[in-house]
């Protein structure tokens, strides 16, 4: 039989198959005990931020409120970042090793499924997991902020009442200003910008972990590589300053993702204005970088003997 009489069937790239694998990955991950415990722990830690914020001191009610809200925001977004990172890295690191251990990778690739569909599907599942986790943590965070805001406004009004009862001078304009400032502080829409960039950073870390996992089926290796990139990524900013004048250094450093630029949370919390354009630029950098890493993973994975 020659090729002329052979089948003319063709299996093209299918986004639907990618989606099926992604949803399967998400379901499988979300049903794991480790994930559920981690998420629960994250929610508890975020909720406990309120507790820590009690240790705040200030001259007057407004300062106290300001400090307490700052604490909650710092802790809350910090927890989002840390737990998000654990979910992103550990969650992605085990994807392909688990498939090999369960033999499911053989069953999937034995079907008319392209290797890239499989890889992209697994990665997308990871990104979905990160997204869902961030949404849940953000909701807890948001609820906590709303609750605290109510409490603080209540305290300010109480103070006003007490002052009026004592017959002292009550500056209504001042009180209103305090309350408005507390409300604006607590429900600062700019916090969303912080969360968006945390999400992009985590998707980027997941992509790096994916790339590592195409080289090795050892989870320890994958996780270690990802954490190394995480720390190096934060040093890039400093390195760029140190070697400002060397073009060679700049080109080398460009290969490592500059993770520092995603940490706008601190500045948002301090009240620094971060324009949407800036957020868009950083997000674009993140997306392009992670796309290149996923493409690199594809090249390695396509060649790999399973």
């Amino acid at each position, binding site marked *: 039989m020659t090729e002329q009489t052979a089948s003319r069937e063709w299996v093209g790239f299918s986004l639907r198959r990618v989606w099926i694998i992604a949803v399967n990955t998400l379901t499988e991950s979300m049903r794991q005990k480790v994930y559920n415990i981690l998420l629960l722990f994250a929610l508890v830690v975020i909720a406990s931020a309120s507790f820590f914020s009690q240790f705040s001191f200030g*001259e007057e009610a407004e300062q106290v409120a*300001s*400090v307490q809200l700052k604490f909650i925001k710092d802790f809350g977004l910090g927890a989002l970042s840390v737990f998000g990172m654990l979910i992103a890295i550990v969650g992605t690191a085990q994807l392909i090793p688990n498939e090999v251990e369960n033999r499911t990778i053989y069953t999937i690739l034995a079907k008319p499924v392209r290797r890239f569909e499989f890889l992209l599907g697994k990665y997308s599942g990871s990104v979905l997991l990160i997204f869902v986790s961030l949404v849940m943590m953000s909701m807890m965070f948001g609820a906590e902020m709303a609750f605290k805001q109510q409490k603080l406004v209540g305290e300010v009004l109480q103070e006003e009442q007490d002052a009026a009862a004592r017959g002292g001078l009550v500056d209504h304009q001042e009180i209103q200003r305090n309350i408005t400032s507390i409300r604006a502080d607590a429900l600062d829409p700019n916090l969303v910008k912080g969360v968006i960039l945390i999400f992009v950073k985590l998707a980027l870390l997941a992509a790096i972990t994916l790339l590592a996992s195409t080289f090795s089926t050892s989870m320890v290796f994958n996780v270690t590589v990802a954490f190394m990139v995480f720390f190096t990524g934060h040093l890039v900013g400093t390195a760029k300053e140190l070697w400002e004048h060397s073009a060679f250094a700049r*080109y080398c450093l*460009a290969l490592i993702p500059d993770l520092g630029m995603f940490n706008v949370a*601190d500045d948002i919390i*301090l009240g620094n204005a971060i324009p949407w354009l800036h957020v868009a*630029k950083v997000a674009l950098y993140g997306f392009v970088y992670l796309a290149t*890493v996923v*493409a690199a993973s594809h090249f390695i994975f396509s060649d790999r003997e399973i």
Partner: protein
Amino acid sequence: MRAKLLALLVVALPSWLMLPLVGSIDAESVKLKYGGARVTRQMRDAIGQGMAIALLAGFRGVVADFLWIQSHGYWEKKQWLQQYRDMEVVATLQPQSILFWDEGAWHMAWNIGYAVSVDTNNVTAAQGIKRERAWHERAQEFLARGIENIPNRYELYFKMGWLYLHKLAPDCGDDLACKKTRYCEATEYLRKAASFPDAPSFVGRTYARALEECGDIGAAYQQWISMWKHGPPMSEPSSILEREIRRLEDQFDLPDNVRVFPKHPTKPPASP
């Protein structure tokens, strides 16, 4: 091997092509003063290994907050120098935070200053006063750095003016020339503070008082008038404004027709 080279290339090329984008992001970050001071060796020694790693991971805010809480621990143990050191580190970590500069200075000048003046370890009362004045100076230097970092908000200018008014000027003791100089320095800062559109009313009032202490009563009167004219009508402080304006108008013994609050009113006062 070929696959690995291809992989490297597919990451490298776009990364290099994005260098202008990264450059633009970095430039913006510098302009908007994102981040904070760089982590120096001394800072690393001051805060310990664990926190240094947290810093490296980008958790500046959390580290700063933690150190802030720690500094209050030192306050309670009367370890003022450690408290001061921690507050310095915190302000250095997040120089964009008004709160840390503001409260830090408050702690130094008001709390620590008072505490050292009544400290039982003082051999003489004079020593206590000397120590207290040293802390007032520290607060002044601290706030000055704060203002350098945050020149576009009213809070720190106000605090500085307040510091001059209530601590640094009285520190002059019987030296009236020194006192007057300090009061006038206070007016410089308070003028700046009052010039911000979102400055609350007490800033303006403090400015007016400082002007009087500095000796420029005319300017003080103008300040009260301008507050009366531009302030919202129904708030309590308007009664304060009225009281002060009346007092100065009496002091200058102004004729009724130029007064805001005439002695013998034929028509209601020129309301704002």
